[in-house]
């Protein structure tokens, strides 16, 4: 009975289930936030032993280079093709440079690079840490009086944070080059107007800086999610594999949601 109405018990189950799920998610969010703050507080070791961070920059950044550069090139080339197709109908082919550059620098660069980063580096981080938990390595570290958050989590956080904006910039640069390849070299848009119109329209403060800020925020989000999922995963093979998929899904959603929020905030300033 709910408020005097006879409701069959069975139909309440999915609703109860949903409520339970929501409450659990919110609770987990709180735990994740605390985990994030703890990671920041215990970053002293990273400052004293930068080599730990360098190792992680290699593992998250350098190893993601290939996928970022190749994807950037292809995205830029597609932008060149599609953009030319559309601009042609308005007789504004020379604006191709502006179209490619602005799309990449403001949106596609940070967002797509972050999505790729989440699936490559994010899932790797989750798997690594989840596996360390499953094989009792984290516990062993604790028993040896070494703080696993300072030694394992924090370096990966800073490594990911440093890599993300660099990867986004490389993505955008490759994309613009791809657009140039298709637009100027292949199709024959005027090279001079391609670059000069682009330079006139792309503003450092508004567009490029915006993109960098976005990529930094995405870097934080993806890395924290990946670290938390790995640390929180049940120490079994199944638990780790589930956590890895969760990382990619949650990171992707977070990136897109944050993208909207950031764009709304920053765009209003213009």
């Amino acid at each position, binding site marked *: 009975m709910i408020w005097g109405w006879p409701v069959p018990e069975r139909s309440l189950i999915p609703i109860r289930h949903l409520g339970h799920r929501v409450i659990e998610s919110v609770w987990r969010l709180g735990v994740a936030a605390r985990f994030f703050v703890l990671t920041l507080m215990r970053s002293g070791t990273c400052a004293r032993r930068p*080599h730990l961070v*360098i*190792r992680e*920059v*290699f593992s998250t*950044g*350098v190893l993601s*280079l290939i996928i970022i550069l190749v994807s950037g090139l292809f995205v830029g080339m597609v932008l060149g093709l599609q953009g030319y197709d559309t601009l042609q109908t308005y007789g504004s082919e020379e604006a191709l440079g502006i179209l490619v*550059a602005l799309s990449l*620098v403001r949106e596609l660069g940070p967002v797509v690079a972050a999505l790729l980063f989440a699936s490559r580096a994010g899932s790797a981080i989750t798997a690594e840490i989840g596996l360390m938990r499953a094989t009792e390595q984290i516990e062993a570290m604790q028993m040896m009086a070494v703080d696993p958050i300072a030694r394992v989590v924090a370096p990966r956080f800073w490594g990911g944070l*440093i*890599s993300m*904006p*660099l*990867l986004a*910039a*490389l993505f*955008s*640069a490759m994309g*613009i080059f791809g657009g140039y390849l298709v637009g100027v070299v292949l199709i024959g848009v005027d090279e001079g107007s391609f*670059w000069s119109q*682009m*330079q*006139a329209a*792309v*503003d*450092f403060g508004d*567009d*490029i800086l915006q993109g*960098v800020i976005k990529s930094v925020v995405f870097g934080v989000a993806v890395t924290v999610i990946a670290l938390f999922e790995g640390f929180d995963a049940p120490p079994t093979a199944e638990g780790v594999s589930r956590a890895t998929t969760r990382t990619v899904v949650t990171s992707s959603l977070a990136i897109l949601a944050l993208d909207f929020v950031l764009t709304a905030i920053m765009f209003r300033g213009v």
Partner: protein
Amino acid sequence: MERTTLDLWVGLFVAAGIGALIFLALKVGNLGSFDSARTYAVEAHFDNIGGLKARAPVKSAGVVVGRVSEIGFDAQKFEATVRLDLDSRYQFPKDSSASIMTSGLLGEQYIALEAGGEEAMLKSGDRIQLTQGAVVLEQLIGQFLYGKGDAAAGAEGEAK
């Protein structure tokens, strides 16, 4: 992997990333051009600025010589006050005129500076006296319609 090889790769990666950022800033964006030059500020009042926005270019003879830095409102005279930052390399006579133009048919609006004939030059803080507000499409259409109407009435009157 060996410690030194690792460091090398990371160094290359960071250098490449920063290089990409610099490329974006200079070749793609407008950082290399105007903003870093030294500027002096002058003011101009307009009865209607139309769609003029801050950071719009100030052009003379089609060349960018400055930027609009601030747009304000004079509550006494009910006009728009626009502050222009002009490149220190270029001096303009005191009687230069500023008008708001549109680039292309439906493009963004900018300020066109036409040099006057005076000997004295504009200094920082001076005010450009001769201004021409933006052309508002509705007013233009209204003028056209009434102009047509007047011409028709005139022709009718003459025919009578």
